């Protein structure tokens, strides 16, 4: 068992012939992920790695291969269209790795995908890893082993640190979900915490947050009211300078929340143990 992706996931790669797409498709295939198709407009009919057929459109790829999840590696200015295309082709799970998608585009994408009940992970995220079953993203496969720890994170490489630290002490994870750090994204902490709470394979949860926004605060509320499984957390940016503010409006809309100290306080009040640095997490899980 696992959440979101497993051995039965039939994965499509949008942007499969680009340099990133091709590199990570190779990694995913080598990991054992069931990559059934790729899409690059204008390259339909080609093959990747001698085994993955390339199509001109998501619709054609889905018709031919029954793909039921799609991962997006296309450049930022084309990524919104790729997400719309996947949603319109009926794909229920879309993972967008692409970094730098414009925020007004993302608001349109998110509102449209919600209407279609499409689950979006990302953008600007490392994707998903269910160790031993499926790697759907860019998390290096060799840094994690199967286990009972569910990992959810807003940060990319910081997630790798945590998985790596867990592996060093022989701890494995059920599924690792990188939700991405963009202001408007597809899936938030609460969505994933809820999945972990209902996943029989997951016994403990690690949540990796960072400064900005109020997702961690909301997660703390959710943990204290809805979760029975223990949660350990780390919040990045404790020493970050206040940085460039979004004028008055940013302060008003978030009501002064969003600092690392606020988040740590909220999480600790919810019974979450918060690590001082990522490598401290394994000991807090014991």
């Amino acid at each position, binding site marked *: 068992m696992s959440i979101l992706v497993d051995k039965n996931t039939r994965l499509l790669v949008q942007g499969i012939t680009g340099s990133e797409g091709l590199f990570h498709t190779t990694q995913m295939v080598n990991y054992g992920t069931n990559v059934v198709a790729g899409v690059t407009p204008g390259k339909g009919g080609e093959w990747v790695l001698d085994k993955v057929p390339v199509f001109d459109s998501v619709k054609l790829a889905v018709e031919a291969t029954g793909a039921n999840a799609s991962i997006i590696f296309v450049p930022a*200015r084309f990524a919104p269209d790729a997400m719309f295309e996947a949603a319109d082709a009926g794909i229920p799970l879309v993972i967008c790795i692409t970094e730098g998608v414009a925020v007004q585009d993302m*608001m349109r994408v998110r509102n449209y995908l919600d209407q279609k009940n499409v689950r979006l992970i990302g953008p600007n995220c490392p994707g998903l890893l269910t160790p031993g079953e499926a790697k759907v993203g860019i998390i290096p496969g060799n840094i994690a082993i199967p286990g009972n720890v569910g990992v959810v994170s807003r940060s990319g490489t*910081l997630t790798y640190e945590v998985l790596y630290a867990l592996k060093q002490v022989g701890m494995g994870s059920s599924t690792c979900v990188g939700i991405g750090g963009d202001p408007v994204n597809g899936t938030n902490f609460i969505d994933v915490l809820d999945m972990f709470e209902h996943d029989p394979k997951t016994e403990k949860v690690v949540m990796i947050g960072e400064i900005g926004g*109020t997702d961690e605060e909301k997660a703390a509320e959710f943990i204290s009211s809805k979760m029975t499984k223990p949660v350990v957390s780390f919040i990045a*940016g*404790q020493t970050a300078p206040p940085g460039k503010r979004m004028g008055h409006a940013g302060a*008003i809309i978030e009501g002064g929340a969003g600092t690392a100290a606020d988040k740590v306080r909220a999480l600790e009040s919810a019974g979450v143990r918060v690590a001082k640095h990522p490598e401290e997490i394994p000991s807090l899980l014991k």
Partner: protein
Amino acid sequence: MKLHEYQSKQIFSKFGIPIPKGRVAATASEARQIAEELGGRVVIKSQVLVGGRGKAGGVKLAKDPQEAEQLATQILGMEIKGLPVRKVLVDEAAAIDQEIYFAITNDRAAKKPVIMASAAGGVDIEEVAATHPEKIIKVHIDPLLGLRDYQARDIAASMDLPREYWKDFGTIANGLWKAYSSTDATLAEINPLVITKDKRLVALDGKMMIDDNALFRHSDLSEMRDIDEEAPAETEARKYGLSFIKLDGNIGCMVNGAGLAMTSMDIVKLFGGEPANFLDIGGGAGSEKVAAAMRIILSDPNVKAVLFNIFGGITRCDEVAKGILAAMAEVKPKVPMVVRLVGTNAEEGRQLLADAKMITAETLADAAKKAVAAAKGA
């Protein structure tokens, strides 16, 4: 990307929002000339990309062209929060009856644009938000549908704006929505939107921020960027797509991923050091980008040690290693370097750096400790 007040107001005006008559000036004599053209009293407003310029003395009222010139001379000689004032906006002065706050920004929690408005506008709006949140009206906009006319009326009614202004307020709301949506803004703010004594609505001050990720479709706005307002290192970093913020410490940091970059800073501090910068090379950085990052870090004379913390995913450690080598060949750094490479192609990366005499580390904590020690030893 922040826009200056005068740039923001030009955009507002293009979308039908009334603004005061006025122009920007780079010299005091230009300011005098503008004041002469406008006649009457004028306001001399420093154009700097930081808040609080009013409280810092960067906004002054002049009764005639002569005083305008004097005040412009004075303001053009100022620094506000460390930024020299290079331009002033000379606007006709308005007789103000009421100050309204009116903005559109992104509500990340709601995943929608949000209008915020308050009849208690002006410089103290943040205090109003903190102490009387009920005085701030928030209305979400459907991003697929855009602002509806009825929403503008609802806001006017909720603010108790007298009915005689509803129609003009509707035009302004529609204009602000268009300004926000057609420029990919993350903020379009009028504060204050004033009711003048002669019963007009005028956007007296304006602030816009543009989404850097959307500038590819706004070449006209990209040209508005005021690089005079940035540290040269930040300008250089942006050119290469690097996310860089200079800080006051002495340990240069080069990390991939914003979260890990912040964490690296956190740990450096946890072990008694002070980071010299935040630098995220982003995902999938090639060697050229890495070399640029390294040049930027080493251009800071405070830097006594450099910490490289790369956990390869979309970024490949061998590419990073190549970039480091290229930059080292060019810059010939004299400070110690601590490098930690883990993840995608880490082995290849380590091999490339094998001859480069760098301090290597296995864990994040280990890397931070070694960097702190190296900086102290240097």
